[in-house]
């Protein structure tokens, strides 16, 4: 094994748009990490007629792709993917495995980690390599206030999951070359214990928040459901989408679809208005790509105010109302 070049594997999750995006984002980040341990970036893809994805992963940074292409893999099955991953890992010994924290990835990874008797850190917001060549996995800890750096020092591979939107994908490189290793579906794979009776694609929700140029985000500091409604009026004037923090969603001031943060959507607007939010890490992890952040908070020391470009120390409701008035007066239709 020792003469083998180490490798970083990215699990190819491709079933829908965001699953595929997170795979590309992980490939890009793996490419950043790879030189530090002189490793190859590899992707692993299971499915039926997946050439399209194989090509895409090479164009986004994979130098090698392991592919199992078989009709029996037409629909996603956790157990089968875990079984296949386990076999490939035991044959090729990657140093690191990165998986998108999609619903599927979040069921696959812990099972795989258990099979391989290794550690797994969920929902990392940062991944780096330290001087010992170990993967530093940075993830929120103990609720919203702290970040913890975790390593898996002894067991291999080192495993981590990452939410979509945490890293940025590389542009498509049409010149890129990569090895494609086709592996036949092993005939002796255990039969899955869980049977898929039906699997229906839900109607594609428009990714409004993720695509919006302006997002108006409200937190608990808006005060009440009635006051929170003001944000919709503001958003309409700005042609913006409304986002919210977790306490707001839990209080049902707005639906779960509006949740911005690790457990919700990752946004990248040109302008983000943030009203009455404290800036907990699970929330801010998903707004780093906003170009201009304008925060309104009564408390000048709130974390959100420190990470904003413009920190407005004032009452959120009053500023919201004043903005609405001003916009109505100024917008030239």
């Amino acid at each position, binding site marked *: 094994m020792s003469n083998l070049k180490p490798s970083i594997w990215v699990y190819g999750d491709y079933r829908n748009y965001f699953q595929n995006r997170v795979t590309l984002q992980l490939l890009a980040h793996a490419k950043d990490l790879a030189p530090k341990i002189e490793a190859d970036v590899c992707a692993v893809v299971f499915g039926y007629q997946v050439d399209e994805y194989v090509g895409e992963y090479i164009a986004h940074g994979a130098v090698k792709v392991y592919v199992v292409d078989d009709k029996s893999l037409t629909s996603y099955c956790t157990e089968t993917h875990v079984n296949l991953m386990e076999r490939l890992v035991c044959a090729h010994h990657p140093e690191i495995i990165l998986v998108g924290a999609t619903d599927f990835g979040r069921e696959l990874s812990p099972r795989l980690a258990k099979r391989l008797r290794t550690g797994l850190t969920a929902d990392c917001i940062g991944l780096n390599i330290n001087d010992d060549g170990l993967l530093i996995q940075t993830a929120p800890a103990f609720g919203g*206030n702290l970040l913890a750096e975790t390593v898996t020092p002894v067991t291999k591979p080192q495993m981590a999951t990452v939410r979509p939107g945490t890293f940025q994908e590389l542009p498509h490189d049409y010149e890129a070359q990569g090895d494609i290793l086709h592996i036949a579906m092993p005939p002796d794979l255990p039969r899955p214990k869980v049977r898929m*009776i039906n699997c229906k694609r839900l109607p594609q929700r428009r990714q409004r928040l993720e695509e919006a140029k302006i997002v108006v985000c409200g937190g608990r500091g808006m005060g009440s459901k009635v006051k929170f409604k003001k944000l919709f009026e503001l958003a309409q004037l700005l042609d913006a989408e409304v986002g919210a923090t977790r306490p707001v969603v839990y209080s049902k001031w707005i639906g779960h679809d509006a949740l911005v943060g690790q457990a919700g959507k990752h946004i990248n607007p040109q302008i983000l208005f943030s009203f009455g939010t404290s800036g907990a890490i699970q929330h801010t992890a998903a707004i780093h790509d906003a170009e201009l952040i304008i925060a309104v908070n009564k408390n000048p020391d709130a974390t959100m105010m*420190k990470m904003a470009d413009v*920190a407005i120390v004032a009452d959120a409701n009053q500023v919201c109302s*004043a903005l609405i008035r001003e916009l109505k007066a100024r*917008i030239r239709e």
Partner: protein
Amino acid sequence: MFKFIVCMKQVPMVSELPWDSRTGRLQRELAEGMMNPACKHALEAALQLKHRHGGRITAITMGPPMAEEILREAVAMGADRGVLLTDPHMAGADTLVTSHTLARAIEKECPDFDLVFCGCHTSDSETAQVGPQLAEELGVAGVAYVEQLELNGRTVRMQRESDDFLETLEMDLPGVLTLTPHYYVPRYASLVGLQDAFEQVGVDLLSADDLKLSAKEIGIKASPTRILNVFSPVAGKTNITIKGSAKKVVDELFNRFGDQLSGAIGKDFKTHDHDEQINE
């Protein structure tokens, strides 16, 4: 008779633990414990199955002695007994080791179990790893993020939403499920029930020795992950602070960022402010 097990965890009442920025310490003692919400939904699912098909529910938790409270609450809601795994050596376990410890306890206390219920995730860590790892550890079928289920003979039919797909799945008992809080609404434990649960029903305590687990295979020692460093993220940006009345801050916002704003909306702003307009 069906044998159901519900794995539950005590979590801090607030998901955000108070943190003393001067000493850099977590003020854990300030946080009261409660039953993790998703575990409560899992218990409710088990209670409904028991009501319909008969059976016996064992609630299990691994935690400090204080975690006994949530087992008594579970009994007050309708579970038949509680098992508390508590041992100083068990402390600091990561998910790999937690699932190992829970599995050995289940094998000892209820080797012929039919269905194990877990919450889909805990509110304090949200790793969502223990349930799927428990299925592996017990070597039985497992499904995560189940919303709703029914039992027909020895077959479980489940529905879940996964990455924008609506899936209907089936498996034969025994198995492990993790439940989301979307469908089942947990019942309240009556005051009388709570009183009885605290006075009459015994909770069984199990130590590492009772489970024949050596100190090497449990707790922080056996956990493959190590925390190197815990820190408070400080976002330092050179930013502009605007203070004053709402009217004043909004005016200043338009003065400085009006162009950017109108660019993003794709609409022009009137160059004169509205005071002049009123004068017209």
